[in-house]
């Protein structure tokens, strides 16, 4: 006789368990869903950069075309970095799992995925460290928090280290001062030993290595681009601006991220620099070789970053300038402020930056000899050296997004605000726990502003957008100002998704709108060539 089958009763059938099967984090492999990860690095770019295992590969495919004996390569890589960077060793050993960082990451906040808690993201690497580099881990393995290095672990590293945007919000809260960005940086370095970069980073890095900037703009194209910006400036102001390129003997070299050369709204910020420097009669030059302030090598490996950074001092030396001013950018300033001096300095052939207009000596840049455009401008405004008409920005209700690196990486909080308040009549701060050193990342930093991971970017930027929404609803804010090229590239999409009606601008663009230039015609257009409301425009 057939065994009696027990049929479920209707009541039992209607009980549906909505909860997920819970597995330990170590046993939950990562899944690659479209829209949530970046494309793999191309072989040709890795080859250009001289990075290992150059080949084309696809993260969503099973086979990542790893080199022979890759496990040993990674373990050797960890050993080398443990001996080279004391901070890495300390960060691996010192964390007490207090959880202060856990709920500070924008990716964790917007996904609830525990592996996006900075502490657990670090644990992905730390567990391997424990297994192979500590006595307890060697003896007790998993009991002591250690785990074997497997392909699944490697894929998990890749997924989460290319989800962290190195914004360092979590580090602000860590009582031990563990810099989670450094753990991500080392994690990415280890992945790069196996050729596991993302295309959005290695492509620009390779272009920069060959042509001086991430976008691969060649010298003649760069002068052409700037020239056409000058045409637009002439249409707006009636003044012809004549910048110089690669001019030897200029007092100042100006370096900005190449995002300002192409794409909206970055180009308007660049037009702002041109107008400001012309108005000041600054003795400065652009370089078509050191044509990139940003550094996607920084998201690859220490060596790649150092090599890409080298050209800035080299060009300053070649041209014989006295010091360098840098444009609005995010990670560029962490690199310049914290790494350039030890990588490629000392720049003893340069002088301590001194504003030729106000005489202010920028002691803070005594060693690097490079100052931020916002500190330069804030100083001008403080000394009343600019004629400004903030009413030209009256149609704008502005809030300011502190970009992670200038704020947390170099403590720049007040200078951009000082400028905005001088050039705009309507400025509204976002809530206190979302600005300054507690600022939320745009969700696209550290080379993650590709388009193919749009979904990931939208959720990563949700905490930022949520705070913008608050001031949009409360004060009618319609402009999100910032001092970062990645912000200008990434935030328009973020605003479009979460807060339609909020546009994005660099602080220098707002300055250029308000700047009253000597001999200019009456302005009817803003820097975007749109009619200026209430100034004779159509609106």
């Amino acid at each position, binding site marked *: 006789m057939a065994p009696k089958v027990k049929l479920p009763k209707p009541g039992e059938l209607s009980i549906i368990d909505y909860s997920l099967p819970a597995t330990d984090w170590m046993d939950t492999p990562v899944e690659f869903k479209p829209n949530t990860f970046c494309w793999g690095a191309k072989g040709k770019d890795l080859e250009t950069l001289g990075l290992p295992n150059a080949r084309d590969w696809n993260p969503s495919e099973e086979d990542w075309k790893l080199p022979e004996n890759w496990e040993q390569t990674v373990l050797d890589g960890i050993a080398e970095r443990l001996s080279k960077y004391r901070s890495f060793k300390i960060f691996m050993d010192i964390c007490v799992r207090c959880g202060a960082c856990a709920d500070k990451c924008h990716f964790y906040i917007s996904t*609830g995925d525990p592996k996006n808690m900075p502490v657990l993201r670090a644990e992905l690497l730390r567990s391997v460290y424990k297994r192979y580099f500590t006595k307890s881990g060697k003896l007790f393995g998993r009991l002591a928090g250690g785990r074997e290095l497997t392909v699944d672990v490697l894929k998990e590293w890749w997924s989460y280290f290319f989800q962290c945007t190195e914004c360092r919000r979590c580090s602000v809260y860590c009582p031990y001062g563990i810099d989670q960005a450094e753990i991500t940086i080392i994690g990415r370095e280890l992945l790069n030993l196996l050729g596991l970069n993302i295309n959005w980073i290695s492509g620009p890095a390779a272009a920069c290595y060959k042509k001086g900037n991430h976008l691969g703009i060649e010298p003649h194209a760069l002068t*052409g681009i700037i020239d056409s910006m000058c045409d637009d400036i002439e249409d707006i102001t009636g003044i012809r601006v004549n910048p110089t390129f690669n001019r030897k003997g200029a007092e100042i070299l100006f370096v900005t991220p190449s995002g300002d050369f192409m794409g909206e709204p970055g180009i308007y910020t660049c037009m702002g620099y041109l107008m400001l420097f012309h108005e000041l009669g600054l003795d400065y030059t652009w370089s078509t070789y050191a044509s990139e302030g940003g550094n996607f090598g920084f998201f690859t490996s220490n060596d790649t970053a150092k090599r890409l950074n080298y050209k800035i001092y080299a060009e300053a030396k070649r041209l014989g300038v006295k010091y360098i001013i840098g444009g609005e950018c995010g990670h560029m300033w962490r690199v310049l402020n914290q790494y350039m001096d030890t990588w490629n300095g000392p720049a003893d052939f340069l002088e301590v930056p001194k504003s030729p207009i106000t005489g202010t000596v920028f002691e803070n840049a005594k060693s690097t000899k490079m100052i931020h455009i916002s500190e330069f401008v804030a100083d001008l405004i403080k000394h009343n050296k600019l004629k400004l008409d903030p009413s030209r920005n009256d149609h704008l209700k502005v809030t300011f997004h502190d970009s992670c690196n200038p704020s947390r990486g170099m403590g720049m909080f007040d200078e951009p605000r000082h400028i905005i308040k001088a050039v705009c009549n309507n400025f509204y701060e976002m809530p206190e726990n979302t600005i300054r050193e507690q600022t939320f990342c745009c969700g696209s930093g550290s080379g993650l502003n590709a388009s193919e991971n749009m*979904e990931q970017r*939208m*959720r990563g930027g949700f905490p930022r957008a949520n705070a913008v929404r608050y001031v949009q609803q409360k004060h009618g804010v319609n402009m999100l100002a910032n001092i970062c090229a990645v912000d200008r590239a990434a935030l328009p*999409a973020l605003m*479009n998704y979460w807060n339609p009606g909020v546009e994005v601008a660099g602080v220098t663009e707002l300055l250029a709108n308000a700047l009253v230039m000597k001999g200019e015609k009456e302005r009817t257009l803003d820097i975007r060539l749109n009619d200026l409301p209430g100034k004779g425009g159509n609106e």
Partner: protein
Amino acid sequence: MNNTLKDLLEEKRSVILTKWFDSILDTYPADDSGFLKKQKDRFLNPIGHTFTNGIDGVLGGLISGQDVEESASFLNDIIKVRAVQSFSPSKAMGFIFALKKVVREELKKEIRQNQINEELLGFESKIDDLALFAFDIYAKCRDQLSEQKTEELKRMTFSLLKKANLVSEIPAQEFERKDLDFNI
């Protein structure tokens, strides 16, 4: 809606909302810290805030019997979040149907005692209407993600193409010239 059911829903509103909220959070990865539930600051926990606010608005709309469109902004807020969290479409939208389950469980005894099965069916049909409406919002969000990818590419390259004289814009006034007489 019959007053009895309406009163019952009002009476149990807060417990229904809590259970509905919990059932939504159950779709997220297991997390012992309970962050999404516990953190009450709207800026530090935007998901929790959006859902708490959103489901309150949606339930309020259902109870008061207003049109589905009236709840649109609350639904919109929730779905925008769900649409970018790697959920399959069914899983992203499942939260709406979860309300049926919560209400049936919470009002189990009362439904039997007060013989309000029919009203309950009416209430559930309204949830179904809401689900259809929500599906439109979800599809719009997903379309928007695709559009943004294209938009970014254009943003990056259009000015370059213009400079290379590969594309050009015809100024509006030129385009509107009246003296050209085409016979189409």
